[in-house]
C-alpha cells in the first residue's frame, strides 16, 4: 500500500501536505530503530538518542540555526504557544504582545491565554501597518512583538526583521506557513514551524529559541533531553520530519520558481475568466505555492462542494460553511470579500495541466452557483 490516496486535484497543501517521498523510508526504518527512550543508556536507548540528535542537527542545518536552538514539539500550534508565551514570561517590560490582525489563530489563542493583546491592523494586501507596529512596540508594557513570516490564508509575506524594535522587545515569528519553503527571516528571538505543512508527518512541531533570548517555560517543565520539550519525543516522526525538511530545502529553488509561475497562471486566468472576482494578497511578495481569491454572490460551502465533485480539493475562508458562521479574521482584517473564497495551495508535484484543469472548471462552477440565486 504505497499508492498515493490523493490525486492531482488535492490543491490544499497549506492545510496539510502528503508525506514527502524522502521521509517515507526514513520513517519506516526509524519506527523499528527509534522506539526506545532517548535518555536510557542501554543499546536501544542510545540508538533512539542518536536518531533524535541526528534529527536536531539536520533540522538546524536546514534552517540555518544552532542545534541547541531547536526543540521538537507535538505540533506547530504547541510550538507557537510555547515560543510566544515563553518570551512573554521572560520579558522584563510587561505582558503586552503587539501582533498583526492577520496572525494564525494559534497566536491569537496564545495571546488570549497568557498575555495582553495589542492588535495592529493590516493594509488591503495583508501587510501590517509597520508604523503602528513600531509605535506599539516602544510603548511601556509591551513585552513581545509577534509577526508571522507569511500569511497562511493569502500568502502575503511580512517584513519580519525589517523593523526597528527596542533591544529589550523580542520578536516572535510564526513561520508555520513558510518553513522549509523559504529561508527564515532575521531578527527573531523565537520561531515556530509545523512539519505536516512541509511534507513531514503530523504531530511534529519545531520551536526555535535563540541562544541569548530571554525565554521562560510557561508550562510545567519536564526532564527530557531538551529542557524546553515536554513528554516523550516521537523520534521516528521527528526524524522523518527532518528528512522531509532537508529535501524541501534542497529542491526549493526549482520548486518555488515553478509554483510561483503556477500562481501567476491562476491569478491571471481567474481574474480574466471569472466575472466579479477579487484576487487577494500581495501579487509579488508572497508564498510561492499559495493563491487566494473571492467570488461575489457565491456561497463558500457550495463552492467547496461543487469543486470537490469535479475532483478539486480546496480550502475556503468563507463563513456559511458547516463549521463556522463567522468569516475568516484574515480576510476581514484586509477588508476584502469574505464570501465565495477559495484558497489554492499547490503540492510539490502539481503541474501546469493540473492548474489549467482547475481554471477550466472554475468559471462554469461559479456561473452555476450564481444561477441558483438568479445572478
Amino acid at each position, binding site marked *: 500500500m504505497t499508492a498515493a490516496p490523493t490525486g492531482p486535484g488535492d490543491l490544499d497543501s497549506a492545510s496539510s501536505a502528503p508525506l514527502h517521498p524522502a521521509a517515507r523510508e526514513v520513517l519506516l526504518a526509524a519506527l523499528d530503530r527509534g522506539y526506545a527512550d532517548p535518555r536510557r543508556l542501554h543499546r536501544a536507548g542510545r540508538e533512539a538518542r542518536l536518531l533524535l540528535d541526528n534529527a536536531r542537527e539536520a533540522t538546524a542545518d536546514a534552517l540555518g540555526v544552532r542545534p541547541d536552538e531547536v526543540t521538537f514539539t507535538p505540533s506547530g500550534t504547541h510550538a507557537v504557544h510555547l515560543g510566544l508565551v515563553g518570551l512573554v514570561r521572560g520579558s522584563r517590560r510587561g505582558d503586552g504582545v503587539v501582533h498583526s490582525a492577520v496572525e494564525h489563530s494559534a497566536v491569537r489563542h496564545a495571546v488570549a491565554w497568557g498575555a495582553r493583546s495589542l492588535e495592529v491592523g493590516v493594509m488591503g494586501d495583508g501587510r501590517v501597518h509597520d508604523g503602528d507596529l513600531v509605535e506599539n512596540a516602544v510603548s511601556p508594557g509591551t513585552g513581545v512583538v509577534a509577526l508571522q513570516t507569511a500569511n497562511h490564508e493569502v500568502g502575503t509575506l511580512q517584513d519580519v526583521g525589517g523593523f526597528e524594535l527596542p533591544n529589550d522587545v523580542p520578536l516572535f515569528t510564526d513561520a508555520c506557513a513558510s518553513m522549509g519553503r523559504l529561508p527564515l527571516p532575521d531578527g527573531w528571538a523565537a520561531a515556530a514551524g509545523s512539519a505536516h505543512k512541509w511534507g513531514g508527518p503530523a504531530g511534529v512541531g519545531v520551536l526555535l529559541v535563540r541562544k541569548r533570548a530571554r525565554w521562560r517555560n510557561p508550562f510545567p517543565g519536564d526532564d527530557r533531553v531538551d529542557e524546553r520539550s515536554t513528554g516523550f519525543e516521537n523520534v521516528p516522526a521527528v526524524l522523518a520530519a527532518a528528512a522531509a525538511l532537508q529535501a524541501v530545502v534542497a529542491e526549493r529553488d526549482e520548486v518555488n520558481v515553478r509554483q510561483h509561475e503556477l500562481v501567476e497562471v491562476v491569478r491571471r486566468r481567474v481574474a480574466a475568466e471569472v466575472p*466579479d472576482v*477579487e484576487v487577494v494578497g500581495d501579487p509579488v511578495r508572497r508564498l510561492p505555492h499559495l493563491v487566494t481569491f*473571492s467570488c*461575489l*454572490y*457565491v*456561497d*463558500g460551502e457550495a463552492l467547496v462542494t461543487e469543486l470537490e465533485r469535479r475532483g478539486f480539493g480546496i480550502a475556503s475562508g*468563507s*463563513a*456559511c460553511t458547516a463549521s463556522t*458562521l*463567522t*468569516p475568516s479574521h484574515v*480576510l*476581514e482584517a484586509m*477588508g*476584502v*470579500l*469574505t*464570501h*465565495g473564497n477559495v484558497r489554492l495551495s499547490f503540492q510539490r508535484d502539481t503541474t501546469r495541466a493540473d492548474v489549467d484543469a482547475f481554471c477550466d472548471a472554475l468559471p462554469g462552477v461559479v456561473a452555476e452557483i450564481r444561477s441558483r*440565486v*438568479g*445572478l
Partner: protein
Amino acid sequence: MIAPHDEYEVALELDCRDLPCPMPVIELARHLGDVEVGDLLAVVAHDPAAAVDVPAWCRMKGQVYVGADVTDDGAPRYVVRRVKA
C-alpha cells in the same frame, strides 16, 4: 463606525435579518436598480460577514459605501449610495 439610527435617509431598506452569508449582498445586487442613481439603499443583516462584504461589494461594483447604523431592534444596517447603473 456605527451611527445612530435614522442617520441616513434611505430610499429603500432590505430586510435580510435572518439570511445567511452571502444572501444580504445578493439581495443588495438584486435591488440596486430599484433606487435612483444618487439615492441610498440599505440592507439590514445579522450576518457578521456583511460588515466586510457590503463595503467590498461597493468597491468591486463601483458604488459608494456610506456607513452603518443600527435599527430600532438592534440589527446592523449597512447603507450604500447608488452612483452608477
